[in-house]
């Protein structure tokens, strides 16, 4: 692994006081599609990181990604520290750029705000790269499982290796010994022959004067000392004693609180507000009218929320007030059919000729699947604190895209970008939701009406009803099987296509494939939802694959493995999960077992689920998960992400359903948008294959495969094929009852 060259720009410098600073700016690589889309042209850098070796030999790593529980504030410094051969216990982490101390070094502000406060020594080498980036706002996205894959591989490791190279060179010059005789370990450089050993910091000033290597050598996995281990995460201690500050916890002098209600029907504008009821309510400060919402500012959130609930609001009609969920599915079917009739489907994959294969098939099989809309339901409801003084706006928020938020707010208020500052806080769950800037825009517009800071907090009901939703979808399949039951043709037609592009693609050896999609316009806002398109396509393709196995009268595991002959990585993961779950073992009565395999964000995950039908209810006992992420840099963290993604996907498979009633979201809170809880949480076992392929993501890839594995297990136990999620809408009876 390691094709990073020509994507990294390395700079060194020394700060007053003698600390060595290394900066790396990186350009987009063709492997990071999500990041690539944010770049206008080749001269722009996407992301940059810094490391500082202080005179006391402590090392500070600046991480340009938000911590939302995925451990990135620990894993990325590990990647840098390992290449640097640093002492892990002296590593400090800092998230760019909110920290005041960091800004004081003129680096944080420099890389955000442009040349004004940019250290001169950096401008020479890095040139205008950073500046174009700030205009483009392609920086600092946390999502797409990209942190390790992109920032880690291209920037963190390169920075660590470059720092080590210049430090070794400086030591070699200083001691006048060949560089080959020097070793770096635990933040010290040692020359064994002369029995000399000095901390990195000793050579910092000298190192800064050297020209940095264009291509520092990166370690191979056998040389890793920190990568591949599981040190304790930096963010956990403050998350067990209540001291971690999330966006909602920010407190400012003179701050007031706002509650908000936006038009329930998406796209509707505010028509009128009767606020006579709260004119004299103690503690109520102001009623703010936004284009599509009303906010009440008060001395406390409870006062604001209670007052808001007494207002009589009227919204303009959009024509969508009569839209029901059934209408949306009906429209989907019409649009799918129209595309098929007119041949207007958009091509995704075309291999061979499916039409010819239908003729020669021993068997044909067709199926259609449906999934509903899903909300993110992060534990921390959307919130943002804003303070506007004159032409300057400060925001405190947990964001997956802080600079994007700053840009949107600057545009909305017509402020200069450099006068909008986002102080990023811990995210109480992200899952894609916190990449959307809607709440920051609302907070800024509300704060513009007053001269004190305002903390805007959404109620859970608002959070549920004003989300950007994983879309409802329909996916249709037709397959041809030969005499042996092998698939000779695979046709799939579905709606919409976002990310990742490979979500509907299959790893199986099928000579004739036609995968295509159509559009169907609705008024429901779409958003990135953990694993994005894979969250549904794994359910579609792996359920269909299971149906084909049963049609061919084959064992579902064997059927998959026999058709993975051109996908050795997949085969290895599939075999591992089957072995660990003891696939061939007989299950007790009323139990069922299901399997799935799916690749997303560069990581292949196979899952086997074991369930039991007790009376007519479902008990998910165990999930065995095997994953090939290329390399798990923090195995314990990777396992926790697999567990997390599985519970998130399980919740959606069992219960997740946002439905549209009268143009608006019908669900409102956790009583009608149910979550998997402790007593329903299965045992999860994770097994990792370090294949040394390019690293894949951790945050998303286990979410897609749980729904099909579960549906396949339900079929095994009951004979009922789940073609529509969620499972709560189906009545389950064990096979004995069905047959008996």
């Amino acid at each position, binding site marked *: 692994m390691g094709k990073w060259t020509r994507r990294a720009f390395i700079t060194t410098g020394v700060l007053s006081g003698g600390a060595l600073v290394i900066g790396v700016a990186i350009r987009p690589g063709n492997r990071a599609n999500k990041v690539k889309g944010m770049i206008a042209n080749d001269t722009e850098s996407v992301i940059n990181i810094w490391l500082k070796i202080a005179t006391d030999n402590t090392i500070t790593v600046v991480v340009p990604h938000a911590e939302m529980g995925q451990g990135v504030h620990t894993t990325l410094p590990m990647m840098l520290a390992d290449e640097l051969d640093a002492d892990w216990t002296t590593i400090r982490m800092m998230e760019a750029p909110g920290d005041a101390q960091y800004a004081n070094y003129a680096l944080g502000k420099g890389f955000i705000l442009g040349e004004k406060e940019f250290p001169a020594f950096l401008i020479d080498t890095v040139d205008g790269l950073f500046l174009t980036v700030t205009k483009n706002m392609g920086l600092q996205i946390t999502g797409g499982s990209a942190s390790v894959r992109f920032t880690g591989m291209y920037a963190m490791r390169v920075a660590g290796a470059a720092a080590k190279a210049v430090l070794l060179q400086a030591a070699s010059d200083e001691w006048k010994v060949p560089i080959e005789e020097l070793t770096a370990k635990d933040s010290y450089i040692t020359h064994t022959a002369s029995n000399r050993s000095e901390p990195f910091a000793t050579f910092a000033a000298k190192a800064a004067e050297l020209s940095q290597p264009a291509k520092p050598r990166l370690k191979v996995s056998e040389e890793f000392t920190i990568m591949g281990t599981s040190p304790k995460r930096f963010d956990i201690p403050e998350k067990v004693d209540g001291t971690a500050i999330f966006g909602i916890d920010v407190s400012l002098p003179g701050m007031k609180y706002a509650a908000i209600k936006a038009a329930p029907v998406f796209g509707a504008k505010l028509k009128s507000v009767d606020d006579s009821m709260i004119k004299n309510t103690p503690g109520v400060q102001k009623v703010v009218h936004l284009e599509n919402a009303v906010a009440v500012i008060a001395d406390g*959130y409870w006062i604001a929320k209670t007052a808001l609930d007494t207002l009589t609001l009227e919204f303009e009609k959009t024509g969508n007030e009569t839209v029901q969920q059934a209408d949306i599915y009906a429209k989907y079917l019409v649009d799918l059919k129209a595309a098929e009739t007119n041949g207007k489907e958009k091509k995704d994959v075309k291999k061979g000729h499916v039409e010819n294969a239908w003729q020669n098939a021993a068997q044909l099989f067709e199926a259609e699947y449906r999934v509903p809309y899903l909300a993110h*339901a992060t534990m921390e409801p959307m919130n943002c604190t804003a303070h506007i003084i004159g032409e300057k706006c400060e925001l405190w928020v947990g964001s997956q895209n802080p600079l994007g938020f700053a840009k949107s707010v600057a545009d909305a208020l017509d402020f200069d970008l450099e006068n909008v500052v986002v102080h990023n806080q811990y995210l109480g769950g992200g899952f894609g939701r916190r990449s959307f800037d809607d709440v920051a825009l609302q907070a800024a517009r509300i704060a513009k009406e007053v001269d004190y800071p305002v903390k805007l907090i959404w109620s859970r009901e608002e959070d549920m009803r004003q989300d950007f939703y994983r879309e409802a979808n329909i996916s249709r399949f037709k397959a041809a099987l030969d005499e042996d039951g092998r698939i000779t043709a695979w046709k799939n037609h579905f709606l919409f296509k976002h990310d990742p592009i490979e979500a509907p693609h299959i790893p199986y050896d099928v000579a004739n494939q036609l995968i295509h999609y159509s559009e169907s316009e609705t008024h429901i806002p779409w958003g990135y939802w953990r694993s994005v398109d894979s969250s549904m396509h794994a359910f579609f393709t792996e359920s269909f694959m299971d149906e084909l196995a049963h049609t061919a009268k084959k064992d579902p595991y064997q059927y998959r493995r026999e058709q993975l002959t051109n996908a050795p990585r997949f085969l290895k993961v599939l075999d591992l999960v089957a072995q660990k779950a003891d696939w061939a073992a007989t299950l007790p009565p009323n139990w069922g077992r299901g399997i799935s395999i799916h690749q997303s964000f560069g990581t292949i995950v196979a899952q086997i689920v074991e369930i039991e039908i007790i009376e007519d209810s479902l008990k998910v006992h165990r999930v065995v998960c095997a994953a090939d992420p290329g390399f798990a840099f923090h195995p314990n963290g990777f396992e926790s992400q697999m567990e997390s993604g599985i519970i998130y996907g399980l919740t959606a498979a069992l219960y997740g359903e946002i439905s549209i009633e009268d143009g608006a979201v019908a669900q409102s809170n956790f009583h009608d948008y149910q979550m998997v809880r402790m007593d329903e949480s299965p*045992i999860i076992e994770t097994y990792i294959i370090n294949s040394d392929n390019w690293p894949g993501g951790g945050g998303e890839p286990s979410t897609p495969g749980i729904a099909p594995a579960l549906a396949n297990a339900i079929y095994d136990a009951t004979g009922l094929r789940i073609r529509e999620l969620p499972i709560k809408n189906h009545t389950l009876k064990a096979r004995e009852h069905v047959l008996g």
Partner: protein
Amino acid sequence: MILVINDQDYTVQVDSATPLLWVLREHCGLTGTKFGCGIGQCGACTVQLDGVPVRACLTPVDAAIDKKVTTIEGIAPSSSELHDLQRAWIEEQVPQCGYCQSGQIMSAHALLQGNTEPTDADIDQAMRGNICRCGTYSRIKKGIHRAAAELASTATTKMEDHG
């Protein structure tokens, strides 16, 4: 009104119907207790009144008068020492985003006060009111077992000391 929170007196002036949650967060500066749903469904706001776990989002502040309120900020034995549950949470690397964990720990804390050797079923029962969107349930369970074992060994040591 005067509230006793984590053995400290707080004087607050609020409407008596205000949920304890907002008083803790906005008047007492105790933001470790989180807002999650507002209807007692998620457990993120779990605190204890006289050792009994309650949902602070549904508890009017006047229900806390003359009672001892305990929040996540108040369970550690001292400012330099963590509670066994907090240590166990670090050992098992339980939190991810961490937002629900104050409530999780407060529910677990209440459980261990009445049951020093909880079974998996006991834990399921006591913890089912607390949602974790990051799905850290299996680690929470491990954390509770670890803390229970730790508390038991401390208790044994104490008994031996006194024996």
